[in-house]
């Protein structure tokens, strides 16, 4: 079938998976491996204290102690190993909290946006009321009640952030619901839930993907803040936020104790957001 359109190259415009997708995936992938195999990869025991080796500088600075690549903190613990172990907490929180928040928020948003009517009324009012609570206070309250620990943090994040997903997904679902292919599904005889899952959900996934990766980045930061103020996990296991808190005290004598965990935190959060953007571009078959 001949037509002028195939000669003007419109259908040939494609976005290529960019550098940022690969870079961010590489960083996060590395972090995952480090976190999974931390006990075997980390060069030293993260909890082992050796006061004679306190505040040793990183390997490339004069006066460094060999084997401690990023130096030691004031208690002689290896910074590198602590960062690697800290990744376990950070990534667990990111993945679990991110996933749960996404599932709850996106589901409610989808139902509200597509089914409309009293379902939408109920869920929207719920979101409005929920968002009226000040989030930081809310999470501190929650942890005070539940006691510190990994699951408390995860719960705190889920409880506060699901509304973000719900709002955005609701708007998307509403826009999708106006599309003719939804009406077409109805004419074909599809039921409402079926239409929602088959027609709307696939078109909402790009947005959900971006939100999910953003949420993971946020989860990492929230965990870091909570461990900074000592409200995080109760054990001695190292956390990036905790290391930053400790590093703050000795920034003049041992800058590396603060800088390296901070840098790792920054790179991780950045990677999450770039991953989301990259994935969205990569998997979007519709290009205008």
């Amino acid at each position, binding site marked *: 079938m*001949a037509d*002028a359109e195939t000669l*003007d190259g*419109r259908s040939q415009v494609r976005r290529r998976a960019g550098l940022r997708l690969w870079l961010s995936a590489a960083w996060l992938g590395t972090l995952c491996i480090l976190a999974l195999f931390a006990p075997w990869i980390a060069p030293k025991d993260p909890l082992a204290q050796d006061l004679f080796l306190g505040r040793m500088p990183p390997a490339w600075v004069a006066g460094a102690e060999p084997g401690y690549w990023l130096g030691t903190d004031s208690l002689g613990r290896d910074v590198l190993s602590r960062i690697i172990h800290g990744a376990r907490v950070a990534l667990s929180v990111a993945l679990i909290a991110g996933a749960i928040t996404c599932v709850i928020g996106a589901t409610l948003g989808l139902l509200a946006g597509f089914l409309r009517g009293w379902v939408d009324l109920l869920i929207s009012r719920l979101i409005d009321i929920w968002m009226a609570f000040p989030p930081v206070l809310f999470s501190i309250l929650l942890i005070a009640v539940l006691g510190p620990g990994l699951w408390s943090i995860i719960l705190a994040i889920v409880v506060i952030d699901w509304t973000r997903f719900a709002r955005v997904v609701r708007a998307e679902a509403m826009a999708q619901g106006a599309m003719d292919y939804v009406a077409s599904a109805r004419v074909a005889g599809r039921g409402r839930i079926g239409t929602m899952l088959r027609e709307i959900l696939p078109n909402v996934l790009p947005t959900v993907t971006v939100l999910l990766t953003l949420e993971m980045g946020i989860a990492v930061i929230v965990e870091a803040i909570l461990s900074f103020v000592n409200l995080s996990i109760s054990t001695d296991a190292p956390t990036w936020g905790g290391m930053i808190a400790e590093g703050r005290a000795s920034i003049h004598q041992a800058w590396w104790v603060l800088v390296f965990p901070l840098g790792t935190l920054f790179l991780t959060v950045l990677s999450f957001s770039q991953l989301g953007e990259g994935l969205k571009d990569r998997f979007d078959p519709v290009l205008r």
Partner: protein
Amino acid sequence: MSFLAIKNLSIGLKKGPPLLRRVSLEVSSGEERGRVWESGAGKSMIGKAVLGILPPSVEVTGGEIWLDGTDLLRLPLAERRRRIGALAALIPQDPLTALNPSHRIGPQITDRLVDILGWRRADAEARARDLLTEVQIAEPERVMRAYPHELSGGMRQRILIASAFAAEPKLIVADEPTTALDVTVQKQILKLISQMQARHGTALLFVTHDLGVVSKVCQRLSVLYAGMVVEDSTVGDFFAAPRHPYSAALLAATPKYTDPQAGLNPVPDSVIAAVRAEVAAFDRSAAHG
């Protein structure tokens, strides 16, 4: 001397296939020129190229655009914008999205005059009122205070027309200005554009896919296929005896309500194959050129 002279203009996607293939056409002051194009993404590309509003994924790969004696493509960007702003205007396709829903109508007409062309506000507002009356809007004051969503599509298109003529441009590019409108409203709008154009002596570049509209509104027309000009003649000559087989096929495909047997003959595959061969030959010679 033509006011607008496009010479061998080629446009393409960056690192991609061409959208316009050495298009040449001229529009004199006071003349309306139609451009008919079958389909495809590049239909408004000529107009956008002239006005300097090509999308970022598209670039000019060759040719010249002469506006009032100056080649726009040789000018530095700021100078080009200034010239285009002073000399040309656009009547866009979709009246629903062409007006900013957050601003009232009045500022949308006067802001350009005041901020960019340096008019006094009082003068700009008087001009806006005059123009709205000229486009047959009954209560210009009330309309100037209204928001776009309070007005109908036909009325919005009138406002866009008034806005285009506001700075007395010498060239107007009308990009399918009536496609989104009802057929009865379309007639009024086209009549209005023709009258305004005749009254102000403006050159008009009219982009459309509707041969019926071209026959009523334009003096000359260019037919393009895949960004290549296949015919360029006066409207009278064209409808009496189109020279290129593709143009003849387009005419045969256009239904006429006075004759139930006429029209609805799709362009035959042989004609398409022939014109595609022409395009391919053009591409080959351009590659070696």
